[in-house]
């Protein structure tokens, strides 16, 4: 039987897989303070902080590592006072744990058949990358030793914890925004019981469904990590899959990558050769024809070259959906650089001289590979590539990788050691009583949810809503006492949103909070149904404008609008020439925000640009 064969396939290769899922909860407030659980668009306050290694970490390090570690690291934190307070800024101790979040976590722990401790201790997990202002993330173990069923069999749950989300990276450099910091997050980790990629997806789906109605939607609201290993390979952690659909592809690619690496290892064993070496070749290649290298040198960087004996011809080999060359290069990628190697010398005829010089310098034979790294961190990057190449003779390295949107993955960092944790002394232990556990509401199954939806929505719409990312919001808005017409709400959340998305409007900018306020404003006749779509467009496009402003719709006539658009084009003729619709749109919206339906503005802007260009 095919299905059986398929399953045996994973057995045969010794496939082992565990899943770790992070889901943001949609509580009103954050986990350890009373800031609203919503995101900001503008951040008027910036503070600068340094993180030093905490005392507890100093234990086992060698001198060199300690030296590196003792260096202070500087970070910028961007703050909007509406969504962050002194607690996030590490200027005030945390408040008590958010009860709503605790109750959700307990109910899920129960539903996953976890053992729940009698006392829950909030811990500090040391985080040194700056994503926690305090230098640690607060986390509490809510349940352990659980079990869930999937179509392909049972999966044990190792742990369920409730923790605060980290600060989100903001743009370039070591900057973070604090609006996400402190958002309640449930982390569920399974044992390595998952037998095949399909089951991994089923398990993730199962957990996702349990939390429908309690979790946030949108980018980053669910983050899935997997641990994969095969016989002869190694445990590799792949982080950051935001979509369910990606899981199977990422796992398949990882299996292939480990198999490919094992093949390369065997090949290298046959060639029996490795004496990796590297050199600073900035002076040797000073007359290079490569603009890239010239620029690197001009900017004060260096050029380093390495030799990998016996590696010639291997760079084009498959490696989990990429080439082995790309894989090696990704280790330089951690330092913002890439490598150019002699296997691809044919592609760069202007480097022929350089490669000839390098071959001579290293006394390289025909079976050897030389490569070049140029830039500020060239030495470190070159070292990282050499080290990785060295490992390929022995094994598949254990490491943490980041999932790419195309289903492949890239090297991120070594596997983390056991988490450093110590008690969060500012929060008292939480007593879990039988009465409290009785008050938890078991999560609804998908079938149950559908039945409830079908009571208030036409059948087809109910089915769509069940799959919609707005399900949680819809359930909230259609809860009793019923304030809004469910069909009207569902129509906005399903068709209107979908339509806008199709037209390229960034609807992910519209927070659930704003949508809720819109329905409320519509009910109290502050805005009219006809303007719903337009307000959505404006909200999605208006960076930093308070929603109250966005809602104040007043009309301008089409004639007035055309002259505003023409003025804007006259002021910025290059925008018209380059057909920068969104830039022009931005200019125009500054003046007509709230005064004209966004769709119409878009249409007229496009028309006027066309006119301008043809004139």
């Amino acid at each position, binding site marked *: 039987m095919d299905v059986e064969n398929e399953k045996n396939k994973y057995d045969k290769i010794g496939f082992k897989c565990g899943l770790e899922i992070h889901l943001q909860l949609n509580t009103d407030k954050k986990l350890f303070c009373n800031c609203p659980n919503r995101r900001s668009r503008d951040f008027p306050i910036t503070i600068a902080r340094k993180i030093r290694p905490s005392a507890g970490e100093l*234990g086992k390090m060698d001198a060199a590592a300690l030296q590196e570690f003792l260096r*202070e690291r500087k970070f910028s934190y961007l703050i909007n006072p509406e969504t962050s307070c002194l607690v996030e800024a590490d200027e005030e101790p945390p408040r008590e744990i958010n009860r709503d979040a605790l109750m959700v976590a307990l109910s899920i722990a129960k539903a996953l058949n976890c053992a729940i401790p009698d006392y829950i201790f909030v811990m500090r997990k040391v985080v040194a990358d700056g994503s926690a202002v*305090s230098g640690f993330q607060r986390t509490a173990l809510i349940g352990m030793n659980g079990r869930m069923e999937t179509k392909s069999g049972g999966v044990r749950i190792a742990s369920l914890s409730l923790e605060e989300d980290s600060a989100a990276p903001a743009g370039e450099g070591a900057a973070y925004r604090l609006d996400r910091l402190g958002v309640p997050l449930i982390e569920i980790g399974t044992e390595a019981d998952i037998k095949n990629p399909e089951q991994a997806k089923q398990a993730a789906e199962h957990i996702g469904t349990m939390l429908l109605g309690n979790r946030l939607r949108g980018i980053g609201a669910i983050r899935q990590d997997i641990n994969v290993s095969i016989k002869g390979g190694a445990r590799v952690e792949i982080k950051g899959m935001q979509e369910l659909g990606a899981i199977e592809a990422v796992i398949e690619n990882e299996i292939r990558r480990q198999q490919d690496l094992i093949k390369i290892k065997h090949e290298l064993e046959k060639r029996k050769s490795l004496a990796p070496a590297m050199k600073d070749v900035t002076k040797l290649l000073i007359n290079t024809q490569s603009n890239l290298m010239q620029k690197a040198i001009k900017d004060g960087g260096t050029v380093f070259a390495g030799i990998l004996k016996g590696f010639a011809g291997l760079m084009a080999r498959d490696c989990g959906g990429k080439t082995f060359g790309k894989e090696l290069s990704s280790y330089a990628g951690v330092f913002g650089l890439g490598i150019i190697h002699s296997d691809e010398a044919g592609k760069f005829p202007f480097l022929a001289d350089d490669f000839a010089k390098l071959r001579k310098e290293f006394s390289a034979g025909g079976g050897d590979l030389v490569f070049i790294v140029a830039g500020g961190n060239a030495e470190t990057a070159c070292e990282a590539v050499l080290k990785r190449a060295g490992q390929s003779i022995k094994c598949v390295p254990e490491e943490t990788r980041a999932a790419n949107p195309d289903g492949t993955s890239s090297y991120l960092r070594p596997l983390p050691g056991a988490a450093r944790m110590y008690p969060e002394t500012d929060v008292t232990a939480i007593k879990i009583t039988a009465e409290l556990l009785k008050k938890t509401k078991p999560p609804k199954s998908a079938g149950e949810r559908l039945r409830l939806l079908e009571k208030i929505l036409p059948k087809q719409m109910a089915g769509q809503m069940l799959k919609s990312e707005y399900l949680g919001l819809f359930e909230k808005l259609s809860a009793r006492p019923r304030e809004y017409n469910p069909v009207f709400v569902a129509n906005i959340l399903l068709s209107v949103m979908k339509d806008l998305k199709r037209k390229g409007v960034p609807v992910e900018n519209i927070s659930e909070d704003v949508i809720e306020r819109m329905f409320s404003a519509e009910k109290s006749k502050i805005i009219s149904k006809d303007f719903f779509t337009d307000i959505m467009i404006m909200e999605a496009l208006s960076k930093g404008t308070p929603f109250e402003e966005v809602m104040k719709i007043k009309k301008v006539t089409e004639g007035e609008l055309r002259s505003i658009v023409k003025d804007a084009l006259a002021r910025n003729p290059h925008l018209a020439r380059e057909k920068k619709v969104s830039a022009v749109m931005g200019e125009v919206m500054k003046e007509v925000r709230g005064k004209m339906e966004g769709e119409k503005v878009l249409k007229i802007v496009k028309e006027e640009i066309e006119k301008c260009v043809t004139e």
Partner: protein
Amino acid sequence: MKNDYSRQIRKALKKSGVGIGDRVVLRKGENIFEGLLMPSTEPGTVAIKLDSGYNIGIRFGKGVKMEKSKSAETKKIMEGESLEFGMRAKKAEQKFDNSKPTISILHTGGTIASRVDYRTGGVVSSFSPEDLLSMFPELKEMANIRTQLMFSMFSEDMRFSHYQALAKEIANEIRNGADGIIITHGTDTMHYTSAALAFMLQSLPVPVILVGAQRSSDRGSTDAAQNLLSAAYFIANSDFSGVAICMHENSSDGSCLILPACKSRKMHASRRDAFRPINAKPWARVNYSDSRIEFLKKDYVRKDKKRKVKMKMKMEEKVAFVKISPCVDSSLINFLVKKKYKGMVLEGTGLGHAPINALGKFTEKNRLFFDSLKRAVEKGVVVCMASQTIYGRVNMSVYSTGRDLLETGVIPCEDMLPETAFIKLAWLLGNFGKEKAKELMRKNLRGEISERSGIDEFLN
């Protein structure tokens, strides 16, 4: 010790031969929990640290079985990650370098030196001076460092005798050639200590800088490092002398302010930049990582190691603070007089007022309050007036209320901080006669009173 396990649990531990730090297996119903036994934090509950690092608590009762784990991992984990959380630092050794100044760090406790206490689950002060040095290796690059553990206490627990012990040790260290002193201190009453030291130690030849932290040193985001290193950098690279406080200038890491000993105050319960200059400007701004010192006032006394420090160390403990509020009652004052208090600082309203005017039947008690103040002065209590507005200057000539109080002999404290006035009064009454104390209370001795009220000295 009250935080130990209860007798019942201790008995069970003994029976199964398990001690704190051992690896245990706990069985409760179908559930099995395995980890290291932690000290008790919640009554009737066994706390264990799981291999994942999490602590959990399991109520100990019928049907719970505990045994020592057969797994041998116990000791291994204990060594790498001790219960004290790895704070057994190597002894910090330093060779004396003639070209560098010598800084003596006197350690008193507080958040700057605190770590986790597994018993209470709270934060306690207990880093040894050696720990501090190994945590902040930059210190050794700036100066020869001598360290000494004076106390391990929260600053709110300090009494005048601690100020005296500190002052003595400072003088000692100066005699032994120190080019500057750093005092690590809890922040709650640091401004009381700085004022006390300023009064006790006249004409200091070198700087004495108090340093605290609002985030404990065990976390990556601690402000202790910057405060301590800035103080050391300032001592090593400036010609300042006298007592001052060194703390964060704002919420960002970067610069610290060197704040006047008698005109600074903790103005926030938890922020890094809690210490602000009041009715004054900071002496200087220090950014050690940019190697920058910027003096904001130039009228400081220059360092001169030949100068001899003059010490007057006594403090009168029978001095009280009385905060004026609506309905404040005369019995408060009467009680202090009866208990033979020698001085009191009234924290008055506005320009230095108290409810003393009887305007009708609802305010008759105000007259009693006035009378009690009058009687206190007559009985020889030195009564001083500072303002609860914190900022600004007491002026008791503007309203009749102030004039009436002046008439009874209440001494206005000008723009002195109430806390400074309290310390100064205690010091004056300890070292001088009553009349001399009254006279000196109104005179500026250590920068506690400024002649002019600067226009740019509010809410900085």
